[in-house]
């Protein structure tokens, strides 16, 4: 049996940052995920926004960790080499009767300690020429930002693994046995892991994992969010993250540029029975379209290249659960971490380690801890000479494999050479963007598949699209039988 000091269940944003914070210390840490890649559930399918924190109810965990987390992002994006831009958000009032709500929001922002500014219609139109001309005013939150959420999680785990954390993918936890001074965690594949402290960061399944140890007074009631992605085109459709006024259901349907110069529109919010149900439906998407057009009438939906959905780990407590299990202090439940979960995750990771685990285990710093990932290659941002120097050293950076997103073979091989390498076509897409563009992988998928097969020594029929047993190719029909 493998023995660890701390075992984390779930490698989404929350689990990733708990792992990264633990990797500073001389501890044996295991990070388990049931999926074939890290960050493959909610952390992969969300709005990709670093919220400012103007909106959560003051005094809640959501408010606290959102505001703390937001402040950490400049440093984190730098250390983890993740695309991040503080473009600011505008919460817009289109109708006269919404103006008082804007003012309430401004007060709430003040209570949360978030810098905001109320703008009149003229000021809004100046910042956002494509906004609905009926706009009456808006709340500007300059600290809001956009981030590449795929890279955030992958790089955080990579950094944790570089600093000694052990990652186990395709390990679904099915039972947890409580022992004196620890736990035995069993997975579907029959493996056992012993740990002194367990952190439950299982997102949509966090209530089920919690109940493996003891009953809790909260439950996950997932809510689905459906989105559109529009292909990149001339910048300037919107310059900020545009929100409607929030409602009980959430922050509403936003319109924003992404760090890859696409545009994202969504999400809807509807309850869903099965946390793994990622289907989309035309009625809901039509509704997303209409609500977005209410704010930005000219959104070119004919440029839509994908509709997708993600499920939020909404919780009956309507706040983040960040606490030990009722009778097991060393079993830490991190549940109900829906929006603003992504922005909160670094702060939650720090809190869990420094304010909770510190009381359970001796934390001795590692001498060789390195907070930075090995730098990534950002070809598009390089100067011509710089880029040519790189190609001279490694010709693979001159050969393009994804045409829509302009990804080179060098970047594909670099991803494979890292400590959390992609194991599937989709995992590669999350890392280098090959397949995210307008052809949706139609052109580059065979090439990516070839590189994965080469790297792992697999037959082409063994390369998966995503999970284990999702091989893209069924049969080599020309093989001699």
């Amino acid at each position, binding site marked *: 049996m493998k023995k660890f000091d701390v075992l984390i269940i779930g490698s989404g944003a929350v689990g990733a940052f708990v792992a990264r914070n633990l990797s500073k210390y001389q501890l044996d840490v295991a990070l388990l995920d049931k999926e074939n890649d890290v960050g493959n559930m909610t952390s992969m399918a969300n709005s990709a926004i670093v919220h400012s924190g103007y909106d959560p109810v003051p005094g809640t965990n959501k408010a606290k960790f959102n505001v703390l987390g937001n402040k950490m992002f400049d440093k984190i994006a730098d250390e983890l080499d993740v695309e991040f831009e503080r473009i600011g958000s505008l919460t817009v009032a289109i109708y006269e009767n919404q103006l008082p709500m804007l003012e309430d929001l401004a007060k709430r922002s003040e209570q949360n300690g978030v810098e905001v500014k109320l703008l009149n219609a003229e000021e809004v139109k100046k910042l956002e020429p494509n906004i609905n001309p009926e706009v009456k005013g808006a709340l500007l939150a300059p600290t809001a930002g956009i981030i590449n959420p795929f890279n955030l999680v992958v790089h955080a785990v990579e950094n944790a693994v570089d600093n000694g954390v052990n990652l186990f993918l395709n390990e679904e936890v099915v039972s947890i046995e409580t022992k004196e001074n620890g736990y035995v965690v069993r997975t579907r594949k029959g493996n056992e892991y012993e740990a002194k402290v367990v952190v439950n960061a299982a997102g949509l399944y966090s209530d089920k994992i919690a109940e493996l140890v003891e009953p809790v007074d909260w439950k996950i009631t997932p809510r689905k969010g459906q989105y559109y*992605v529009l292909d990149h*085109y001339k910048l300037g459709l919107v310059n900020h993250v545009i929100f409607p006024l929030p409602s009980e259901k959430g922050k509403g349907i936003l319109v924003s540029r992404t760090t890859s110069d696409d545009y994202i529109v969504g999400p809807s919010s509807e309850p869903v029975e099965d946390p*793994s*149900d*990622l*289907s*989309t*439906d*035309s009625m809901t*998407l039509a509704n997303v379209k209409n609500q977005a057009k209410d704010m930005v009438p000219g959104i070119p939906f004919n440029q*839509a*290249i*994908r*509709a*997708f*959905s993600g499920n939020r780990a909404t919780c009956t407590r309507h706040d983040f659960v960040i606490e030990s299990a009722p009778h097991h202090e060393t079993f830490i439940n991190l549940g109900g971490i829906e929006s603003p979960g992504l922005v909160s995750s670094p702060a939650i990771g720090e809190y869990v380690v420094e304010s909770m685990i510190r009381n359970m285990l001796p934390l001795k710093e590692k001498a060789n801890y390195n907070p930075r990932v090995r730098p990534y290659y950002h070809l598009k941002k390089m100067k*011509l000479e710089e*880029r*040519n120097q790189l*190609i*001279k050293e490694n*010709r*693979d950076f*001159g*050969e*393009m494999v994804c*045409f*829509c997103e*302009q990804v*080179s*073979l060098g970047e594909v091989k670099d991803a494979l050479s890292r400590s959390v390498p992609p194991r599937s076509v989709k995992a590669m897409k999350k890392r280098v963007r090959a397949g995210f563009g*307008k*052809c*949706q*992988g*139609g*052109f580059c*998928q*065979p090439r990516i598949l070839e590189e994965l097969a080469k790297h792992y020594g697999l037959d*082409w*029929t063994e390369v*998966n*699209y*995503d*999970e284990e*047993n*999702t091989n*893209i*190719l*069924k*049969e*080599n*029909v*020309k*093989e001699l039988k």
Partner: protein
Amino acid sequence: MKQVDLVIIGGGSAGMAAAIQAYDEGIRDILILEKDARLGGILNQCIHNGFGLTEFKEELSGPEYLQRFVDQVKERGIKFKLQSFVLNITKDKVITYSNAEEGVVEIQAKAIVMATGCYERSAGAIQIPGDRPKGVITAGTAQKYLNINGYLVGKRVVILGSGDIGLIMARRMTLEGAKVLCVCELMPYSNGLQRNIAQCLNDFNIPLYLSHSISKIVGKEKLEKVVVSQVDEKFQFIPGTEMEFECDTLMLSIGLIPYVSLLNNIDCPTSSTRGAIVYDNMETMIDGIFACGNCLHVHDVVDFVTIEGRNAGHGAAQYIKEKEEHGSLKIEVDPNLAYVVPQFVRTPVKEDLTLKFRVRKEIRDKKVVVRHKDEVVFSQVKLVMIPSEMVILTIKKEKLQDITEPLKVSVEDR
């Protein structure tokens, strides 16, 4: 910066024809930039028969057809670079490309021919209701895996869309051991050639369901089944018409879209085909940048791509030799026509004018008329015109000598 007279972006059928034509008109300093490891573009994977009837008066497979042009390119010593991807072009015709040998290179061209082809509309673009499992793939990608690499993507297949690639793939996959359960088509007519329905579906008893679409995809990680439903005139699913098919593959043949990112980035005006708006010499609205083939509008028959490529090569050669000032008149179409290429004719008209268009729905026993003011400059009876087939007509230059107003193309009673 290196100077080149003519740079051709894309070494498929259109690009090679343009290069050969320009060479034969005296342009020697030509460079073809091809992103893939071979010349020939999409024809490399179109191993079926039926290409070349217009060009060579014989039926060739795609690879045979393209090889004849590769040979012509090589005979002339026209320069080409493979695995060389164009990252960017400017209105001033500076081209930035990248490859492994040279790195990122900027060159200045006198003229550019865009021959970048098209891409397949994906599942994301049409938002099929239901799950997002592995097993949904576009027909062209499945074709590449089968015809270039030798792999079947699945053994039980439902095809959405009756475009030609889908029909051709229905036959190819059947012959190689897969079971194609059905082809469903949203429209009340097929988008493929009649002969492909006959020899790719009927020969193998594969049912074609017109006015049907996929109402649900089922399968969490892997595709398990699809639900096919009939649609009404407004393309809404009709309850009670559901048919379930257990399958491991849903193959999409739902349309091709001109690949024009480079032109979009320099604000080149485009038409409803999503390709560039062009004059009759295939010059876009940006001086010295020409376009031809499937990046201009999606063709049904490759021979016509070749002809259009030559037209662009001719236009570019003339432009390089002697840039002429000219006027222009618009070519307008009535609502029966989905589009026309070219959209403008240069004046004075010095060459016969070829117009290409598609109709929006099947039209039987009418005539196509081109008018200048009230005068009929062209008229031809068409027994049948269908959306899946491009219509080509040529107007004699003599008829167009004194034109001063837009030309109008219309479909009228005989």
